[in-house]
């Protein structure tokens, strides 16, 4: 059984290897955090990657799509742009398109938004008495798009017990198969991560990169989907 294999190997590991594994994991989590904060600075947005949560922008964006945002001051808000904004007093960001802007000489701008799939503009969504949005409500403008990947965060939010299991899942596969390591000196894959007695070094490398990538992405998504 999988869990028994895991525990056997843990017992066989000496302290140094255990520390190595823990540090490895810690490195991955902290590089995820560094990249996240770095993106926040480069893009100027407080949330540079968002997951689309509603179907109000179909057929362009569906639930679970990932959007890359920027919020640089030199880029003024113009009609037709897809903005992600938060209404005062509400946590959830909304992804809609700008319908109308009125900008004054000094740069003060007020604008109206509408979802592509909605029949009416967003005035019904704004606060009572609020007719326009302002720059301060904007989290960012959507500049890039990757489909489907964000479903993971939606699933983790809807089924919170899976959050823990999903994080442990790649860890189970990440345990070094110390039997083969100890027995065979000449080993094509020197990364110790994949459970390999495989001959193909490339597949081994991909396997291990994937384990790193999954841990990295899961760390990133836990940060993204903090609600």
């Amino acid at each position, binding site marked *: 059984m999988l869990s028994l294999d895991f525990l056997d190997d843990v017992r066989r590991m000496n302290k140094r290897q255990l520390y190595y594994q823990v540090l490895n994991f810690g490195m991955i989590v902290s590089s995820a955090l560094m990249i996240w904060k770095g993106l926040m600075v480069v893009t100027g947005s407080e949330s540079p990657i968002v997951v689309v949560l509603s179907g109000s922008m179909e057929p362009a964006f569906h639930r679970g799509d990932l959007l890359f945002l920027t919020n640089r001051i030199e880029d003024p808000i113009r*009609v037709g742009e897809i903005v992600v904004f938060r209404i005062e007093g509400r946590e959830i960001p909304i992804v809609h398109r700008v*319908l109308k802007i009125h900008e004054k000489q000094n740069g003060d701008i007020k604008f109206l938004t509408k979802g592509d799939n909605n029949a009416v503009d967003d005035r019904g969504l704004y606060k009572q008495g609020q007719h326009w949005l302002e720059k301060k409500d904007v989290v960012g403008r959507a500049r890039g798009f990757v489909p489907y990947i964000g479903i993971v965060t939606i699933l983790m939010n809807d089924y919170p017990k899976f959050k823990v299991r999903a994080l442990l899942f790649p860890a189970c596969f990440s345990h070094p198969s110390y039997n083969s390591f100890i027995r065979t000196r000449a080993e094509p894959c020197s990364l110790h991560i994949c459970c390999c007695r495989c001959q193909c070094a490339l*597949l081994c490398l991909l396997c291990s990169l994937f384990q790193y990538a999954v841990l990295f992405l899961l760390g990133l998504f836990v940060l993204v989907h903090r609600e």
Partner: protein
Amino acid sequence: MNTVLSRANSLFAFSLSVMAALTFGCFITTAFKERSVPVRIAVSRVTLKNVEDFTGPRERSDLGFVTFDITADLQSIFDWNVKQLFLYLSAEYSTKNNALNQVVLWDKIMLRGDNPRLSLKDMKSKYFFFDDGNGLKGNRNITLTLSWNVVPNAGILPLVTGSGHVSVPFPDNYETTKSY
């Protein structure tokens, strides 16, 4: 590699890596493409009224009505990485109150597979053309442009403006009859 689970694991890992590479390939092969085409816009009728803005702040504002024609051939924009084009006709002008105003008059979603040749005649605007104030009366220079947002399968979301715009003057008087 002799348990079902480890084989499934490597298979899963490999397929995810291949899909990620394909997605990146999709993005990088179309990232620097030119996405502008010539567009012909013609305006046949312009009317102006002054009513209470029932769509928003209830002040008396200028309400414009524009009847327009659009001709464009967007066939060359669609490629393997374009999922849809979000077309919108926007009016840009400046008034005493605001240095820059932009209003979307009409929009259309054009999916890949739909007829890419636009040949629309005598179209009425989809959205109410309310100004923030009374700046449309006698405004000599209202520029109508057709732009589109290219929505890819994966990659950048550029906003492209078609080359070819038209400038319309608005009348000096309000229309009082119940026309349109």
